[in-house]
């Protein structure tokens, strides 16, 4: 989408009032729990092997996730991609004078792993909040880092619920239950529909969709 188109969409979503409402909401919003079928499948797939698996969590550090995954015998990797993407050192000036994140600079310091290193990845809803320039290169990199038959669990918002679409830290409290802890400072950047998701993850072997009643689409992808 062109820059003016992006600006228009951001204006329509009220993103010109930067994060104020979202931050306010995050400060007051309590933790909530949601049942998660995709996570249940994801964990089940992890549990079915005796090998030491490598699992990458792309959300903010969650002690409960680390506890659960290490108890399953996995080696847990954590990279808070969204927080890292806010680092201004990755910004470069574009021809029109605006600043944009440079994927090359970003990936020189983040997600520096060999191809096929991971057995599974928790992508959560990070893609909805990432800067536009990072989304496609990030998905390509994740696919390369994932082993064949490896699982990736991602969430996508099905509609912009404004301040209610808070970015959250996802804590796995049970094998099919998440606790969402709102984190201030981030605003939903886009809404992916099914077609967008299929195109974005087109190199994955399969994609399984679960549509929740809470405006969240869970997608379990297999490379």
């Amino acid at each position, binding site marked *: 989408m062109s820059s003016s188109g992006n600006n228009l969409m951001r204006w329509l979503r009220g993103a010109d009032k930067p994060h104020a409402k979202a931050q306010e909401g995050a400060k007051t919003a309590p933790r909530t729990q949601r049942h998660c*079928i995709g996570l249940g499948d994801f964990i089940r797939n992890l549990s079915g092997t005796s090998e030491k698996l490598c699992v990458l969590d792309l959300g903010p550090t969650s002690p409960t996730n*680390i506890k659960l995954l290490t108890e399953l015998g996995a*080696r847990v990797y954590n990279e808070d991609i969204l927080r890292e993407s806010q680092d201004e050192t990755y910004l470069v000036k574009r021809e029109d004078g605006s600043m944009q994140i440079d994927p090359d600079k970003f990936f020189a310091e983040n997600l520096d*792993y060999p191809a096929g290193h991971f057995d599974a990845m928790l992508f959560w809803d990070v893609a909805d909040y990432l800067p536009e320039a990072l989304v496609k290169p990030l998905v390509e990199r994740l696919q390369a880092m994932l082993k*064949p038959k490896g699982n990736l669990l991602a969430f996508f918002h099905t509609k912009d619920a404004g301040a209610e679409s808070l970015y959250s830290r996802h804590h796995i409290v049970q094998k099919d239950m998440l606790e969402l802890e709102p984190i201030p400072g981030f605003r939903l950047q886009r809404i992916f529909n099914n077609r967008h998701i299929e195109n974005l993850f087109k190199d994955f072997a399969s994609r399984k969709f679960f549509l929740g009643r809470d405006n969240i689409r869970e997608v379990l992808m297999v490379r």
Partner: protein
Amino acid sequence: MSMNPIQPAQPAPPAAAAPSVPVQHKETPKASDPYKADVGHIGKSVQIKGELTGSEDLYLDGEIEGTIDLRDHSLIIGPNGKIKAGITARDLVVHGRVEGNVAATGRVELRKSCTLIGDVSTQRIVIEDGAFFKGAIDIREKDAPKTEARKPIAVASSGMSSGSSSGVASYNASSGSQGSFLDNK
């Protein structure tokens, strides 16, 4: 139950009658003092570049660049601590910032104010809500051989030192089916 009737206050004996034993103000060591006495302390204004080794527990609140090797002892990184070093210790508690790989034979605690960028290999780990962690966590069983750290961050910045040693995991997911299907919750 025996009753103790209140005794009337006895007049204090005259000072001269008191035995002339010199009073010594010797502090009785508390239970924790012997431990504290063995803890080295590096303050927040101290900067060290190089190799730090020791055979006692250490509280470290300064800036260190290099390596830290305490083997069988505990290391506490204070809130002002800024460490760019690979760390080997029995137990580690981090309040400050660490960039480097950590190998602990006992327990690692990441407190809420801490930032740890590097790989952790330990038997037990405690992570408080709010701690920032970027890297890998490998829980090792007692006496298990050490797994090689992925990337020595502070000591050498060259490429990866390990890769995916484990084979491809066997998954139940159907990899052959293209396209998508929708399951309503």
